[in-house]
């Protein structure tokens, strides 16, 4: 059973969906707030988050999903380019909204403890909000979180490729990009346009790149986010981190997590790596696997008495 709801945070009106907990399930699951996955609406790619809400409600959790301003059904302004919006998220642009929504969920459910779930940009906001909220965030589920900080600017005019200023500017941008470690990570993990045609080559180069990169904190790491992770961990918050195996963000997380989660106790973080899928888990049957893993994990930790 779903219900259309809305919430006001400051001048912003956010439309959302409430998944009422299944009446036949006597389990008192903690309220769950699922955040927008980056730059798209609250249902997520392949409706992953909408289905997740239904399943968690069946397990006894009241589940809330809202669209941040400008996304999905919520009115609001957006930048022209995806990279601009991601930079905005990485710098904590949605954190105040998330804090407002945490309060809203807490008020509606009369519970102070809330579980946060976020995919990609949503995971970033979940960490930053958990770091700042006075409510007790007991658990966070991070789906293919990105710990880097985008350095590139908007790509230029729509439909005109990379640059506005002709071939010379294009070459300059290309030369800049090719020197950036993230470009090569994208290539190795099959996430740029050349990766598809050079698949055998990247298969050979990937293990070498992993050894070279080692566990050093990359120069473009999002330090504010990493520090927030450290504080959240020190508060005792439990984390389930689900990643797409062998993909860009998983490789990046492997470099960053030794620092970000350095203070974590043995049972505080559980990592699940799902193979043969993409960043948004819409391939290889990952959608149901992700939901299963979260349900299992919240089955252990997501009730009021745990």
């Amino acid at each position, binding site marked *: 059973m779903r219900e259309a709801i809305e919430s006001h945070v400051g001048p912003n009106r956010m439309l959302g969906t409430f998944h009422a907990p299944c009446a036949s399930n006597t389990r008192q699951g903690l309220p769950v707030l699922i955040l927008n996955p980056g730059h*798209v609406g609250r249902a997520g790619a392949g*409706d992953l988050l*909408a289905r997740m809400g239904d399943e968690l409600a069946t397990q006894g959790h009241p589940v809330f999903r809202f669209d941040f301003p400008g996304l999905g059904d919520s009115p609001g302004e957006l930048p022209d380019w995806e990279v601009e919006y991601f930079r905005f998220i990485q710098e904590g642009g949605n954190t105040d909204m998330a804090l407002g929504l945490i309060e809203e969920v807490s008020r509606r459910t009369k519970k102070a403890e809330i579980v946060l779930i976020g995919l990609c940009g949503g995971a970033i906001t979940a960490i930053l909000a958990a770091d700042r909220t006075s409510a007790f965030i007991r658990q966070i589920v991070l789906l293919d979180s990105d710990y880097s900080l985008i350095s590139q600017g908007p790509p230029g005019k729509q439909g005109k490729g990379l640059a506005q200023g002709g071939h010379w500017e294009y070459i300059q941008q290309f030369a800049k990009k090719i020197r950036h470690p993230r470009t090569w990570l994208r290539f190795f993990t099959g996430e740029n346009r050349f990766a*598809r045609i050079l698949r055998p080559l990247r298969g050979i180069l990937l293990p070498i790149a992993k050894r070279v990169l080692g566990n050093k904190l990359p120069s473009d790491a999002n330090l504010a986010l990493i520090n927030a992770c450290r504080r959240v961990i020190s508060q005792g918050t439990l984390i389930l981190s689900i990643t797409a195996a062998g993909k860009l963000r998983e490789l990046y997380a492997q470099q960053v997590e030794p620092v970000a989660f350095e203070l974590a106790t043995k049972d505080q973080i559980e990592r699940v790596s799902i193979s043969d899928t993409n960043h948004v888990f819409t*391939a290889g049957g990952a959608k149901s696997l992700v939901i299963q893993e979260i349900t299992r994990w919240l089955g252990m930790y997501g009730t009021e008495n745990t």
Partner: protein
Amino acid sequence: MNPQELYRETGTNVPLSIPEIRWSGTIRPPGSRPFSPPPERSVYLAADDAQLYTVRHPVAGHLRGRIMLAGPFPSQRLYANVAWTSWARLLAANGYEVLRFDYRGTGESTGHFEECTFERWYRDLLICIDSLQQDDGIPLLVHGLLMGGLLASRCFSEKRVDGLLSWEPVTSARKMLKEMLRGKLSEDMVLATDGERKNRQAYIDELLGGRIVEVDGFPWTKTLWESSSEMELTTPDLASTKPWLKIRLIRNKRQRSVGQRPEWKIPIVYPPFWADNQYMVPDLLDLFQQSLCGVHQLIERTKQ
């Protein structure tokens, strides 16, 4: 670019007059002040065993008409959303009450995608039309995008509405599914899966054999595949008594044509706004401006 300049570019003698537009929503000319229509309301409609998620955009002041929006195939909904909601807000700001919705089993509507067929989605559209329609003589148009254009055309041919507007309607549901399977093959290439790679026919055989094939995260079934064979676009007759307008969304600016015939071609930025893109707010000012003009004209013709 002002409307006169837009028209000069077409090289055609366009008989339409462009009214003053109240811009609203995310997509609007730089520097323009957004007009705020009354806030839209999201409501669930009961539909058999599902709840259909709808968003109603009300109008302040004079009501010119009602417009039912029929969106694209579920996997295109994700990216088309910014343009689609912005278009709904623009219509509402200019005097049209709008209802948009998610097909059952998709987006915010409940139901199981595995049980969906094109016929059921068509019935969802009819349920929403019934909810929007009122017995007050205000004309009702249906506007479809891509797959929505296909469903809207059927709606129009069955005389359920007073007029039709479609943006790039797909000509056949089967062709559309086949095209999407091609996208799946492309994704298979990117994902480093071991073993033999499948071709499109192999996936079709799997569907026909009763297996579920996951495309863009949606579980396609034999039922969905088979139902697609019955959905073909029927372009209305030019002599149709009820007004209609089909707009093809093209890439080449030189082929732009906006005129008296009800089949226009308007260039948009490519990759199109319903595909995964680098941009968040697509530049669709020309399309919005001309379409609004078309809507005004359709509404006027329903009164003749």
